């Protein structure tokens, strides 16, 4: 059954005295004299939440890999595990999952000792939709999306992330945020500033 | 001196744009020329000291009436507007005597008006009481009957327009139901 909901019609008093106008105007004027709540972007920057879907990175081997998946994949592909380098096992699952697969350029190489490792990993960010499917697909928790959101570049070439860059982003991110609890909003002073008013005003937010 | 200069300026513009109204091929340009005629005639009124008539000329002819023309013409796509459609020659020929009669009447009225007040007695009245007041006084004393008749004609026109509009709305509703 479709329930139709109509707006309550205005009473004559409201129509003649423009009460609805006045109500709206009073709301805006009250807001006009309150503190502004924006961040002054290029001068102040907010830290996005941990699950933010920004630029990509490769997490590096540091002993926190998801086990036993990582060991299994390493075993299967005979991957050379170097601490401090990318965890990638060249399974191409990220490329399979991607709606724009041609943005990936993934190649592995065979080392003289018979083991393998990733040698080329380019991602063309001009084509990416930041959907995050590749991240979900990665079996060893290697590819991830960081909190870097200033993605503009002066040339198209700069929009391609190569392996070195991905590793650097990953190292940086692991150092900064890996231990953070995985929540939507972080307990950040900057973020608090945004919601300071809710703490005071809205009953449902008050703790 | 300055008055004469401005007078000739405005009348020159008026005549030129009137020629434009007749001869320009593109309807949008025709409307613009018409606008220019109306505005420059308003300027002439201002110079002659008939400020009320000038302002009303601006308000009613230059804005209200011409807006409707523009309103209609801007709906013409540009390809059609550039095309030079043939004019309505036969209709023009038929209506020619009527237009001629109108012009003769205008000249007659003008001459009669000059003969009534050859030295411009009204001018003193106008400077004494102000433009608007004089027009109002004349309109509501000497020409009261004509004024009322004209308003009656306008009323009839308005009612006719409303009725025509309503009819269309009804057929539209019948169609949809």
């Amino acid at each position, binding site marked *: 059954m479709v329930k139709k909901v109509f707006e309550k019609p205005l009473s004559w008093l409201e129509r003649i005295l423009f009460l609805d106008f006045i109500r709206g105007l009073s709301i805006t004027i009250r807001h006009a004299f309150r503190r502004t709540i924006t961040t002054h972007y290029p001068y102040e920057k907010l830290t996005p939440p941990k699950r933010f879907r920004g630029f990509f990175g490769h997490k590096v081997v540091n002993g926190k890999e998801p086990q036993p998946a990582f060991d299994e994949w390493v075993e299967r592909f005979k991957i050379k595990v170097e601490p401090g380098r990318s965890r990638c096992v060249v399974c191409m699952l990220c490329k399979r999952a991607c709606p724009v697969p041609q943005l990936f350029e993934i190649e592995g190489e065979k080392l003289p000792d018979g083991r393998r490792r990733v040698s080329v990993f380019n991602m063309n960010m001009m084509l990416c939709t930041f959907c995050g499917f590749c991240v979900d697909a990665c079996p060893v928790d290697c590819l991830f999306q960081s909190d870097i959101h200033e993605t503009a570049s002066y040339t198209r070439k700069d929009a391609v992330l190569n392996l070195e860059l991905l590793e650097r982003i990953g190292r940086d991110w692991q150092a900064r945020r890996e231990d953070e609890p995985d929540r939507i909003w972080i307990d950040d002073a900057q973020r608090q500033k945004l919601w300071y008013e809710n703490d005071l005003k809205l009953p449902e937010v008050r703790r | 001196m300055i008055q004469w200069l401005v007078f000739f300026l405005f009348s020159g513009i008026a005549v030129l744009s009137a020629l434009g109204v007749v001869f320009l091929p593109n309807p949008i340009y025709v409307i613009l020329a018409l606008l220019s005629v109306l505005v420059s005639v308003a300027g002439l009124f201002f110079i002659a000291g008939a400020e*009320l008539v000038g302002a009303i000329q601006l308000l009613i002819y230059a804005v209200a009436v011409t807006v409707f023309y523009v*309103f209609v013409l801007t*709906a013409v796509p540009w390809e059609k507007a550039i095309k030079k459609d043939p004019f309505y020659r036969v209709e023009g020929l038929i209506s020619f005597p009527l237009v001629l009669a109108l012009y003769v009447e205008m000249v007659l009225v003008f001459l009669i008006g000059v003969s009534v007040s050859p030295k411009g007695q009204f001018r003193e009245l106008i400077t004494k009481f102000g433009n608007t007041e004089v027009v109002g006084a004349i309109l509501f004393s000497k020409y009261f009957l004509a004024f009322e008749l004209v308003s009656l004609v306008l009323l009839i026109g308005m009612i006719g327009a409303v009725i025509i509009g309503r009819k269309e709305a009804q057929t539209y509703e019948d169609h949809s139901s």
Partner: protein
Amino acid sequence: MDSVLAWLIITVIKILVILGIVLGIGAYLTLVERKVAAHIQRRPGPMVVGWHGLLQPLADGLKLLTKEDLFPRYGNRFLYNLALVLALVPATLVFAVVPFGPEFETFGIKVKPILTDVNVGLLLVFAFGSMAVFAIALAGWASNSKYALIGSMRKAGIVVSYEVVITFAVMGPIILAGTLSTYEIVQKQIEQKLWYIWLQPIAFVVYMFAVLAEMGRVPFDIQEAEAELVTGFTVEYGGMKFGLFPLVEWYVEGLSLSAIAVVLFLGGWSPINIPFLGFIDPLFFLGPLSPFVWFALKVTLLFLFILWLHWTLPRYRIDQITSTAWKVMLPLTFVNLVLTAVIAPLIWR
């Protein structure tokens, strides 16, 4: 000859002063608008260029001037440029009949701070005010774009309806004052010790609605309607040509129409009024400057009120707008006219 020369010089000075003030203030009103809008939405607005963004209009102007001048294919270049002139000239001409203050004397010359005190000033205001519609219609037609065309058609529809309404709305004050000259209307209000808003609240409300419609402000901004028409008739304009339209329509015209509202309903340059008793002037210490300050203050407040409305209300549909004009506003003004005719003899005395 001497007096003619003096008159000429004074007039030229007046023209320059008025043009300077109007265009300068018009440019700076962009900043005011952005600040008001920002604070209503709890943003700080422009903050970077100059102290609290004070130089922002200059930066905007520079940016607009240095932009590429684009022209739509198959457009009509003559009309496209003519529309700009048609927009700017009538809007600034309105200021010719706005009285900024009472007559004063400097260097032995009496100066009325009004360009021409025509005795049909008000009619001219509305004639010029609605001439902007030609600019918009031509801009829409000449740029050969359907958005522009739709925008201009909507604007023409609105102006045609609200022109009638505004003319009847100002009839009330005109009857009370018994004159069409803007300068004398204010003087009559001072003589009668009465702001006409006290007797004409209906006319004032209707007038404000019509002002919003003529300025293309919310709730009547359907000719711009960013969400559906991009920006209406200015879609195909670029650079400073684009900047000129909002400057004229929102700021110059807005200023002139609020100035006329102040003249008609709020007693022009007179201080705060208690009906029939007199005037209270809290700014008496400014001496002969106080009338000018009062006038500027009232116009500013009225303009800020319009901005406040703009950033509060949603937009009406075109049919709602026109039916409000013809079915609500126009009958209201007629009622008001009859009421005024009944009271007027009491006021005249």
